[in-house]
């Protein structure tokens, strides 16, 4: 029963996205998608802009907040497991050709006002959480999985993956082509230089660069700052 229900949902999704997915703006595509995609998505806020050529797979597990922008060539894939979830909160902007894939029993959560640049990849199967107002530049990769390769006699592809999960806290800026490895937490307000590969946790308000990424500076002034001042940021 459950299976036939999910099959019907998938059929509905293929039909709706197939019919409306490629309608350009001049043919009222974004308006129609804003109205009719409601029937296939888990949840959809107000005035969402979905450009033509956006691919949504497993739409019944995708939630879009008000004012979300999805540009041409974006692909969001929540297929693969019934518990998969992709949640974009209010005002998130996802640029062209970004690929967000949940894969297996994964929740990908992107909080309010975050920007994801051209051609970035975000993938499970570990959970990924990106905080408020983050700036993720083009070509960055956030992969909550690492291949195991302990056994030299087996194919690496056959040895499974880790899925510890990645957390990027509020107000972080990741430069062009930054890679974030599975299991990493990047603290609030951190800046990661272009081309860096983040393999370990980064404390809040750090500036980290290089491969592997090393903290070279803190954004906080030398005299200890009143912690309540920093709390203001989360209330804004």
């Amino acid at each position, binding site marked *: 029963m459950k299976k036939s229900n999910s099959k019907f949902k998938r059929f509905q999704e293929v039909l709706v996205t197939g019919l409306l997915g490629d309608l*350009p*703006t*001049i*043919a009222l595509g974004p308006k129609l998608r804003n109205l009719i995609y409601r029937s296939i998505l888990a949840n959809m806020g107000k005035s969402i802009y979905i450009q033509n*050529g956006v691919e949504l797979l497993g739409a019944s597990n995708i939630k879009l907040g008000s004012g979300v922008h999805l540009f*041409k*060539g974006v692909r969001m894939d929540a297929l693969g497991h019934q518990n998969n979830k992709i949640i974009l909160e209010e005002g998130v902007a996802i640029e*062209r*050709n970004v690929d967000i894939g949940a894969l297996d029993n994964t929740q990908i959560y992107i909080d309010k*006002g975050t*920007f994801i*640049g*051209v*051609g970035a990849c975000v993938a499970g199967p570990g959970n990924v959480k990106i905080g408020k*107002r983050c*700036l993720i*530049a*083009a*070509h960055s990769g956030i992969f909550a999985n690492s291949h195991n390769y302990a056994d030299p006699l087996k194919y690496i592809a056959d040895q499974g993956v880790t899925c510890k999960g990645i957390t990027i806290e509020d*107000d*972080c*800026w990741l*430069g*062009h*082509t930054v890679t974030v490895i599975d299991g990493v937490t990047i603290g609030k*307000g951190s*800046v990661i*230089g*272009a*081309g*860096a590969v983040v393999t370990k946790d980064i404390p809040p*308000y750090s500036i980290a*660069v*290089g*491969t592997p990424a090393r903290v070279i500076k803190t*954004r*906080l*002034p030398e005299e200890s*700052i009143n912690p309540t*001042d*920093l709390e*203001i*940021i989360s209330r*804004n």
Partner: protein
Amino acid sequence: MSSKKAVSKWKRLQETVLTVMLANIPTKVIGSKLRTFFYRSIFAGLGKDVYIQDSVEFINTPKIEIGNGVQILRGSNINAIGHPKNKISIGDGVQIQHGVDIRALNDTYIKIESDTFIGPYVCIAGPGNIKIGKGCLIAAHSGIFANNHNFTDPVKYIAKQGITRKGIVIEDDCWLGHGVTITDGVTIGKGCVIGAGSVVTKDIPPYSVAVGTPAKVVKSRIGDRELVNFTDSIAKKLVD
């Protein structure tokens, strides 16, 4: 003033209708020929023998200039919207591979000179001005961003602290490897080679080989020879 606005609105409508009607006609069905024929009326300039594959997106075409023999492959996006003074100029014989993203943003002039090659999925974005010289080779996944976020104030969101816009210059005959990043304010001298994955944060003198994050000069292509004499001898060779 209002008539000026009406003209620009009319132009925008013309652009939208033409690009939507023609952008997706497959190249095999004389799509490229049709596109170059009709696009001529909406671009600032469009040279001879231009080849534009299907699903290439152009936005604000009256500010985009394309030279002779330019090739633009599938999925590229060239966007000059955002400011009336924006301009994107693509020189003769430039090759733009698939999925390339070029955007002016705000009061920006992006100039790509003749015979330069831009590899797949490269991103080039203002709002600082960008100039790429003649005969350059820019490999796949590189990013040339003439903007940097300010983040001096830890109690304000980085996204709200504004950006720099100093501009980027890449001189003639440079080769950028795969996944190279160029940050705002950098000038790369003539004939430089930048290794794959490098992040260029400072000016690079002409004929250098630079690698790493941040990119450091590891070699000179002309050894100890005086630069002036060397370029003179090259010029002589070219003339001969």
